[in-house]
């Protein structure tokens, strides 16, 4: 039975006039949802009207169909935009009541620190790694041979006075007084060329005070190759000093004495604190003693079975504690071993 076009049109007119204003007027999300069901639900007014179209005569259906669909699109769009607006209004209302004090203390995560000696040592090593030196380590309990004899310091050599030593056993076992025994171990284990950096802990048998510690740390470098000269030594140490202490750092090379190097060099850098003008730390000299160095002594090469006429090399060492003290302006070396968290957490 064909539907009554007139009745359809009356219902359509009533709906068309009322639905959009009703949606427009909805005050909250709930009433908006009710309106959606009322008009667009399965039994909603517009849904039913659109369904009733199929019963109308074909000509009317063609005329009225687009009108119905158009109204549905407009209604859906309005519902969506009203929904967004009402949702935002509802959230705004909720947020107005939120009270958070952003100034309350944070939860302390990851507040640990690396020891200033670790930071300094790793940086020294990193600079030398970049210069092509490979990291090597060795034992802290050493033999007299590695610590002294192979380094051209035979028994009763007066240079032993510079190395007050802790002894741990009758067989000449001792706590290494410098990182240099690792030079010997490395050279005995591998053929030249050798280019290593050795970080580590060393020991001296001396009373502990503000500037002396029985335990301290060194970073040492060794480079052995054909035709290495003192020019390479100076250039490397100049690079090293500038990488560590700044590109404009002035460096001074002085003759010195170490049994395992010849010539021996002592390297001063311009005082890090006063910049060379003279202060209490540099004893008014403007310079700080920083590195001991030199060309590897032929007797050291002989001890490890390298031919001193074919191979040349240089070695150098730097005191990590001293560098750390200068960089962080630490006045007393004992602070480095006291492990007071108020100190450690500053770095």
């Amino acid at each position, binding site marked *: 039975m064909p539907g009554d076009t007139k009745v359809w049109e009356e219902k359509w007119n009533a709906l068309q006039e009322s639905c959009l204003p009703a949606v427009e007027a909805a005050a909250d999300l709930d009433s908006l949802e009710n309106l959606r069901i009322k008009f667009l639900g399965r039994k909603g007014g517009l849904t039913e009207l659109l369904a009733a179209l199929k019963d109308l005569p074909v000509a009317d259906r063609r005329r009225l169909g687009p009108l119905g669909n158009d109204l549905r699109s407009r209604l859906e769009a309005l519902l969506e935009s009203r929904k967004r607006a009402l949702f935002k209004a509802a959230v705004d209302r909720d947020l107005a009541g939120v009270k958070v004090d952003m100034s309350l203390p944070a*939860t302390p*995560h*990851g507040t*640990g*620190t*690396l020891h200033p000696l*670790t930071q300094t040592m*790793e940086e020294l*090593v990193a600079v030398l790694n970049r210069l*092509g030196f*490979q*990291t090597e*380590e060795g*034992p*802290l*309990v050493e033999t007299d041979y590695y610590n002294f004899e192979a380094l051209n310091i035979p*028994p*009763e050599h*007066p*240079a032993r006075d*510079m190395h007050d030593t*802790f*002894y*741990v*056993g009758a*067989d000449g*076992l001792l*706590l290494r007084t410098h990182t240099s025994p690792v030079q010997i171990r490395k050279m005995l284990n591998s053929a030249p060329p*050798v*280019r*290593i950096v050795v*970080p580590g*802990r060393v020991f001296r*048998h001396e*009373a502990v005070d503000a500037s002396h510690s*029985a335990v301290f740390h060194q970073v040492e470098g060794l480079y052995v190759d054909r*035709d290495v*000269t*003192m*020019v*390479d030594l*100076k*250039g490397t140490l100049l690079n090293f000093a500038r990488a560590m202490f700044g590109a404009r750092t002035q460096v001074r*090379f*002085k*003759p010195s*004495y170490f*049994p395992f190097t*010849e*010539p021996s060099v002592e390297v001063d850098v311009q005082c890090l604190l006063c910049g060379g003008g003279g202060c209490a730390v540099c004893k008014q000299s403007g310079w700080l003693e920083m590195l001991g160095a030199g*060309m590897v*002594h*032929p007797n050291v090469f002989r001890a490890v079975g390298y031919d001193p006429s074919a191979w040349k090399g240089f070695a150098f060492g730097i005191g990590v504690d001293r560098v750390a003290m200068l960089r962080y302006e630490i006045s007393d070396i004992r602070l480095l*071993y*006291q*492990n*007071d*968290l*108020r100190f*450690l957490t500053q770095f």
Partner: protein
Amino acid sequence: MKISHSWLQEFVASGLSPEALQEKLLLLGFEVAAVQRVGPGFANVVSAQILDIRKHPNADRLSLCRVSDGTGEFSVVCGATNIQVGQKVPLARIGAKLPNGRLIQDTRIRGETSQGMLCSAEELGLAESDVNGIHLLDGTVSLGRDIADLLNLSDAILDVEITPNRPDCLSHYGLARELAAYLGLSLRSPWEGLDLAEEGESSVPVKILAPEACPRYVGRSLRAVRVGPSPGWLARRLIACGFRPINNVADVANYVLIELGHPLHAFDQDLLQGPEIRVRWASEGERLLGLDGKTHLLDGQTLVIADAQEPVALAGILGGSASSVTDKTRNVFLESAFFQPAIIRKAARRLGIKTESSYRFERGSDIAMAELAGRRAAELICRLSEPPARASRAHDEYVKKVPPVVIEAGEKDINGLLGTSFSPERIEGRLRAICPRLEKTPGGWRLPVETHRLDLTSAADLAEEVARFEGYQSVGSEPRTASAPPVTEEEGRYAALSRLRRHFASLGFSEAYNYDFVSKKDLSDCGYPESEIESSLVGLLNPLSSDWAFLRPTLYIGLLKNLVYNLDHGCADVRLFEVGHCYEKGPEGSERVIERRFLAAVLCGGYPSQFHWQKAKNRPLDVYDLKGFVSSVLPFDFEAGAQARGFLHPKISCRALWKGSAVGELGQMHPVAAQSWGIKMAVPRGHGPADLKAIWFFQIALDELLGEFSARRKMAPVDDLPASSRDLSLLVDEALAWRSLSDEIESVITDPAEPLVAAHLVDVYSGEKLPPQKKGWTLRLVFSRQDRTIKDEEVDESVVKILAKMSERFGIRLRE
């Protein structure tokens, strides 16, 4: 070594100021620690002449002198008896200040005006006593001259650090010789002006019975010596250089020591048995009372100077008291010898004696200097004796002549090592300055080394000499491009260690550095039994103190002390870690020490903080936090109970295993151990932790693990299909360990046929609502299929299977 600037100038007239000299010495490798100006210590003291002497009317022992300083006349009261009219003397004028602080004023002494004071050597600080009365000036001096200028009393003392390789520079002459060679100046020879009249032979025969230790001994008798105080000029120089004047004989020995660098010894010849000198090894058990006032027990490795009966001196180290020169001495026997350095050093160290003499002999003295030094000392002693003493001829026992060291070197040896391009002529000039007997050879030069240059043995040593004299700044600093030696495996280990440290720092641990030394008490407080300490731990033979007698076998001791320190200083949340070596003796019979690297940590307080304002964030640390910290390094297995000698809690502790072997441990500190360390700590209850004061430790052995950190991982495919999960509330026997169930579940997860992919323990419950001896666990099981979306029926089926298995294995059932 203290060097007098004016004395040095006498040998090499450099004309350099003390500061300029300091700079030059630094460039040569001799650090000058300090330059000290020494003034005369007095002012306004001038030369004056005695015009008239009268007796003081009111005092028998005083006289009234009229003196002139050339511009005025003064009346001065004087107590000395050595004055005569016409003498020239030092006059302290009114307003003068003397070294002892005394201010000279216009005064009256026993009623007579005194307008100044005539000074003795002692009053001017020129001598230690005034037995000679007023210090008499040379009759030719003009009047009114400042005494300080007149006697050349202003000087600068340089404290020069001489490196152990340069004993030849341990004297004024030696340092002057170095400077002269460097500056190209002439050097005054110590032979110059040395005029010793010798008569007769030495009265003391010398027998060298240990030529391997003493290749040369020069002896000389000095007869009719009058022992007394040294003159002011000599005493002043000794004092300036840090020596205490004793008498003219001992002082001359010291004077020659700092002048020429060669140690000497003077005996009272009449107290030598025989008289005879034997240079020999001591017999075991012989004793000698030394000049240091101590009796030294000698052994067969001590070289002594003995007379016919017994030791009279420790050779090269210390004289004996019995034969020493005193005021009564009439005849002196003067020794100037050479001793082998190692022998002197060994004996001096064993006896614990360090003297100026041993210091020089153990570094190496100049065997050629022995004769000259003896002659110079004999000359001075004879001259300073009043009336002059008489010297015998020297008895020079030179038993073992050592051939000179000869170095062959060429231009390449020098420039090749230094990287320089000095011309051969330039190098030759530098070498000739230190080696005058240099000869040219086809390949370069042949250099017979002077006997005082013990440091020169190879071409490398000569390269250093050239570089020093040219200046290290003349060596370039543009390195060539160097070859790169192969990368080593150790690199990875150091980098891994660095990552590990950063890992713990970011977990909130601060890094500690402790000494490697611990005390016996520390060890026994950590549960090490006495027998184990002695048998397997490493003791120091020469500890700095008994607190530091052993090398640590664990990092716990240091960390525990750090904890106590920090708690005592008001820090409540402590999280410290340390990476360090620990030591134990090697297997029985071997002297080896086994050294292993550990990472350890101590924790106490709340997590993450005791003081956090959110309750959930100021909870106490517990053992599962520790498992978490340790597991974050590597996915260890854990086994209950640590083997920590009672240091850790027996129940709240476990071992960490890696590939089946124990590599670490963690747990709460045992309450009893905590008590013995004086830490007040509540006794924890039953399971788990409840106390903010509980102390936690863990320690991991790193040597085996460092490689694992850098082990390369392989990717496993990531499953992105939807998963579904089920929560099961289980009723479990109280004794069942989670590990048993989790192993079982793990076997289901790893079975590819089963859809179970993960299981989480989301609740652990115990309480009254449960039947006795039961506990409640809630598991969240996650299911998924690799190739498709999983169906509900599959999940249900799997849950039933899992429940059946749990029931069968452990009697687990679902809670109602």
